[in-house]
């Protein structure tokens, strides 16, 4: 086989651009084989990198405060309706400026007629209340901004 250097380069390029590990060309009684180790196969490597992707590290407990540049947040552990007070005409559980203790009830998120009391997981001060009373909240929505003490 009269294979010149350019043609050999083409074969190598073809191998590089493909997912193949081996190319074999046969003409008349001549044979040329270009091969590489399977390790650098682009497709396989990419997928291996993706496959074991860990499930995102979502807060597992009800009111883990999500840390951020501008403070700690209490996020909603359920989808439901946000209530600031235990009854429609009752006083709110907390207000801006209040100091809160670990385990103190901050609000209620109602889901399926069940009133779920949301407790503080950290002690600190309420800096901002981010949802209006009676409004719907989704899973993970920020409810309060807290300055931890």
């Amino acid at each position, binding site marked *: 086989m009269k294979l010149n250097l350019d043609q050999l380069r083409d074969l190598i390029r073809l191998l590089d651009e493909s997912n193949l590990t081996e190319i074999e060309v046969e003409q008349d009684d001549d044979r040329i084989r270009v091969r590489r180790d399977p390790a650098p196969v682009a497709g396989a490597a990419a*997928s291996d990198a993706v496959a074991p992707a860990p499930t995102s590290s979502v807060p597992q407990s009800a009111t883990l405060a999500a840390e951020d540049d501008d403070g700690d947040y209490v996020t909603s552990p*359920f989808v439901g309706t946000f209530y600031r007070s235990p009854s429609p005409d009752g006083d709110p559980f907390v207000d801006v400026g209040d100091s809160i203790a670990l385990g103190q009830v901050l609000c209620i998120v109602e889901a399926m007629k069940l009133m779920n009391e949301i407790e503080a997981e950290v002690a600190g001060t309420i800096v901002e209340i981010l949802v209006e009373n009676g409004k719907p909240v989704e899973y993970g929505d920020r409810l309060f901004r807290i300055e931890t003490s």
Partner: protein
Amino acid sequence: MFNKVLIANRGEIALRVIRSCRERGLRTVAVHSEVDADALHTRLADEAICIGPADPSRSYLHIPAIIAAAEITGADAVHPGYGFLSENPEFAETCAQCGLQFIGPRPEQIRLWGDKVSARALAKSLGLPILEGTGLVEDVEDAVKKAENLGFPVLLKASGGGGGRGMHVLRSKEELRAIFETARAESRAAFGSDALYFERFIERPRHIEFQILGDMHGNIHVLGERECSIQRRHQKILEEAPSVALTEEMRGDMSATIVRAMSEVGYLSAGTLEFLLDERGELTFLEMNPRIQVEHPVTELVMGIDLIDEQIRIADGQPLELPAEPLTPRGHAIECRINAEDPDTFAPSPGVITELHMAGGTGVRVDSGIYGGGRVPPHYDPLVAKIIVHAPTRPQAIAKMRRALSETIIGGIRTNIPLHQRILEHPAFEDGRISTRFLEELQGECVLTATVRH
């Protein structure tokens, strides 16, 4: 009619439901997990609610979160899609208790057909042909006795199983004795029950299923059959309608039997009765799926019907307005399930879609939940697209599907498109000589060829 439909699902089926709702002027609510915040169903619905983290048990399977999402958005109906909560009778019941119209069968029907043993008994009492089988086995000695009476080979099945899981082919009593306790433990671990029974084992069956619709006025319609024999480990990969293995007479007879049976139980909404077709041409009942199925589009194409829209009309109490029986299929349809997986090893291949071009042109339909730049998360089903073609004849449909697959570009992840291409090129497939073992045998050939080359 209800005004706003919550779709308790994700991926292509969530989009499928959103589309029919939108065409009917109904508003839609998507629910999604945190990893699906940018998924297509989330983006295309009128409203979207995050219901939990990626883990399905805390999001798409979490009934209180889904009901709460319906409450806060004012949705008044729920479509469950397939998988997830679609066959959970408690979910259908909870929807009803919360004043939400469940777009699907009644809870008691879901419960009735959900257990394989009671479903078999019910089907038998309704006059459907049943594969010879036994009642539940007590212990290993009882199992040997029952299997010998039935005659080897037998299929040992878990009563609580489904989707092809919890089954063993046994060719002798020695094999049965060897595996019995393991099978029992597996069943207990996988399905929470160690109830096992036997069925006659058919060596090379075809999988044939009939689509039905029932309304609140006692009408039952059979919308022909689908052939789903191309399976891998009991998971369907390629489906078509009609089946080349059924004559008009067989189709007509079975349709009449099904109409009688389903009228007796007053079946509501869409459902599918699955059968095995043996080498002698006998159909025997396998199971009933009380929900919409992945492969429903092939029926839609040959019957000229929108099954999701019919489900919506049925849930609203409207009568079916289909032509009198028997409905005859027009042309031939094929569906290829495109999965994010390696075509040879079947290893899942999640990731970011870097490049996407979907097939088009006459007679090609694509139902898909992916988009360029979107992500296929590793937490869910690998189905990323369904390519469905419709043509006047089966050979034309095969040619059209080959053409459609050759146009399709999905970059960034690996898909089973090469596997579909191998199936569609195979002479046995072209001739319609297929069984549920087709793929197993095709892969055997590939392994053989590879060995010879070395």
